[in-house]
């Protein structure tokens, strides 16, 4: 019988799509600027499936899957410094596993939307059931588009003149430029359609899709979100439409702390968008603490049947896993 393995990369980056099947590396030009004196410090190494990090290890005793956007991808930090990789390794260590016995697959992608993240969680965990899932949800105003069998990522950046210029200056034939133009137009139409509240509504559905799917599959999981504040502020939770939906996000699954709150001073990349290794380490520590508490919680006795009937899905999530 063929050993199941994850699906190769199907995201929006053409270079990663084209090089599926080979291992390759790239060195983003901007990293040496903020990492003092370490010009060739950070490389992105891609595996045969097109994801950052080592190759998939089908015979590993313990497997962790990482999903998310640039924070989980580890923009401008080494692979080993990414919060999710650190957290997964620490959890494995505490379970008595050696590094060579574990496999960490990082499916995250820069610029990913929650729609993309949800698709990746479903399709990758639908192929191979990992022991732990770590998710870094994306901020608002993003979406994953599908055009002619190819995906594209749309977000606030499609409104910028730089993107417009990039499309005009794109290498390649007219057909490619026309395709890029069409995606840009569709991305801009999406931005015209969405707004802050709309985006939160769509995000909540995608986050619940991840949560409930993993719960129904009994997979241990934890997630963080930079835009947690927007999701949990009083105005949102009391909203007749958003409130009941967001209430279903289990605090055991979606950790109620904001990674940016843990940010170390000056621990930012030069683009001002991504945090550095110290912050990643702090996030990893908090996630591990949360996971420990979460796992110990799952060892508690279950409630009686009457209380089960009235539990909200949030609590059911934990109960399902306990079972």
């Amino acid at each position: 019988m063929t050993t199941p393995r994850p699906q190769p990369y199907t995201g929006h980056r053409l270079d990663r799509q084209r090089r599926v099947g080979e291992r390759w590396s790239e060195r983003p030009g901007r990293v040496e600027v903020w990492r003092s004196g370490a010009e060739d410090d950070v490389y992105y190494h891609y595996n045969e499936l097109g994801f950052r990090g080592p190759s998939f290890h089908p015979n590993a005793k313990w497997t962790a899957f990482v999903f998310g956007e640039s924070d989980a991808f580890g923009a401008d930090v080494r692979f080993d410094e990414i919060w999710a990789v650190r957290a997964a390794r620490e959890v494995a260590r505490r379970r008595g596993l050696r590094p060579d016995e574990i496999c960490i697959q990082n499916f995250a992608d820069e610029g990913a939307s929650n729609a993309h993240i949800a698709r990746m969680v479903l399709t990758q965990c639908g192929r191979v059931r990992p022991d732990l899932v770590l998710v870094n949800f994306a901020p608002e105003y993003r979406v994953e588009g599908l055009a002619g069998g190819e995906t594209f990522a749309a977000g606030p950046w499609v409104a910028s003149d730089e993107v417009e210029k990039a499309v005009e200056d794109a290498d390649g034939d007219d057909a490619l430029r026309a395709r890029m133009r069409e995606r840009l137009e569709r991305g801009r139409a999406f931005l015209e359609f969405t707004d802050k509240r709309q985006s939160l509504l769509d995000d909540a559905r995608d986050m619940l899709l991840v949560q409930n799917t993993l719960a129904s599959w009994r997979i241990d999981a934890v997630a963080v979100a930079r835009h947690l504040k927007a999701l949990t502020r009083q105005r949102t939770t009391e909203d007749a439409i958003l409130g009941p939906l967001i209430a279903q996000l289990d605090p055991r699954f979606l950790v109620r702390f904001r990674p940016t709150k843990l940010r170390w001073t000056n621990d930012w990349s030069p683009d001002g968008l991504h945090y550095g290794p110290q912050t990643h380490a702090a996030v990893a520590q908090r996630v591990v603490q949360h996971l420990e508490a979460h796992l110990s919680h799952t060892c508690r006795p279950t409630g009686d049947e009457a209380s089960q009937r009235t539990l909200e899905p949030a609590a059911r999530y934990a109960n399902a896993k306990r079972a």
Partner: protein
Amino acid sequence: MDAPSPRPYTGHRIERHDRLGAPWTTSSQDADVAGTRTYRFNALGFRGPDYRPDAAFKVFVFGESDAFGLGVDFEEVWTTRVARGEAKRRGFSPEETCVMNFAEGGASNASIARMVVTQCAAVRPDLVLVNFAQHRRTEAYAEGVAFPVGPWHDDRLAERTVQEARRAGGLRDRLEDQLGRARAFLRFCDEEQGLFQSARDVLLVQSTLGALELEGIAIARDPERYRDPEALSDPALGPLLRLIDEKFFALEVSPLKLVDEVDWREDGNHVGPVTHAAIAERVARCLEPRKAHRTHEGAPMDDTQAVAEITESVRSFYTDLPFNFHGTVDAAVDAIQRPTVKTQYPDLHEHLKRLAKRRTDGDGSLDISVLEVGCGAGWFSHGLAHHYAVEVDAIDLTPAALERARELAPIVGTEGRVRFRECNVFEFHSPKRYDLIVSLGVLHHTGDARRAFERVARHLAPGGRIYLGLYHGPGRRVFLDEMQRIANEEGEEAAFERYRRLDRVHADDETLARSWFRDQVLHPHETQHTLAEVCEWLDASDLDLVSTSINRFGRIGERSALFEEEQGYEGRSRRALFDENRYFPGFFTVFAARRD
């Protein structure tokens, strides 16, 4: 403490918001302006009677106008009919049943998913019925109101509504904003994108019911879209679509194809009571064998890649030499004309005889339809058509085998009564329902025998029967281990010679003997099963065990006695092979009937 109650209406219809708290009625709704129907809304703002927290059987309905029942009375809506029928079947009186219909005309799958998540969190129903919406719709959020967006925003009517509102003042700004946003959405979301988004919404409903361990079933007007080959082969969309659990989302139900002529309502877009009744009848039939879609196992694993690799290796294996392949056409014809079914499968023979008698006693026009899954070179299909005058649809993976099967038809005289089709069992779909489905020695080579079984069993007609032949776990190992031992120690030819001495039936024809030897000993993929395991498959598909070779086609009493007898299958195999020098490849048959 108050009993939990569903959440009140949060849609875009102002009149439903304004009248929350007390039941009210109207004679027109959306496109239904005939004024001949009564739409009664309950205190929570949903169509139908008030919510009753003390009801013993609660059914929640979600969906768009088909589930809402635009143009038909509440009791005529397919969802209400199914709810009432299920209540009755489970022994609940109408007074003990509460049907809450949360559906709304123009709803999108996004809003349906939101409603399922929030209402099922507030109160756990006993059954959930969903009518998914068409694609290219969404739920937009503006100023505390969620309003539906869909292709209708591109037409002139939408423009005119805004113009009228502009003249009247008041709502103008809001409507203009909604129209602008809706049109932006439609520029972003084409048909492909619509399906991409719908797949996620369907999976949100499926996983939510799974996490909550709720029973549910869903249909859609356009189920074909979810198994469109082009969409399934898309690297981004295909894997999502494959996670849809067909035990939950009944893709085999095409609501608009259930009646000869749809009784469209005055608006030309909504169906009438006849079609609703047909949908209800079909859904009820789907629901029963599904045995409570307790999705707590979650969506099925997407093992498509692994199964596809197995399928390819099996196809390639049989392309070299199909199974049961005679050296000459004459020999193949001769084999078809022998009464093999009677001698090898006596239980099936008796059943076919009874069917034939029913036909003879009746008006003679009774067609008996048979499906053979994995027909190979057509020996069995032709045999059934030849001896029992039945109509057979036969599928197989291997063109080389089908070529021989087709070649035999004019010679045996079964032309027009046996139709051969190249098809993978996992892709098989037919609107036809069969009186008999046969699959002998095939499903254990598919990579997922249970899933293959469930797929074909779905095509049984009411009262139909299925006949399976599978490798038996303990019974098979004895033979296989011995053959593989000889092949490893003395070589493949020595194993073939030993096989020939055992299998005297096929030994005289060199090609035939080799085709059997390869199939039984060298196959690239097989799984082995037990009667106890297959009985679980039968239960899940609402089938009753009729007979089995495990007890030599004897009477079926307590299953536990059969399973006990099954324990001796390994011993039977060992005795046959080593004491009696007899061919015993560890194959067993199961004959089952659909409960109706």
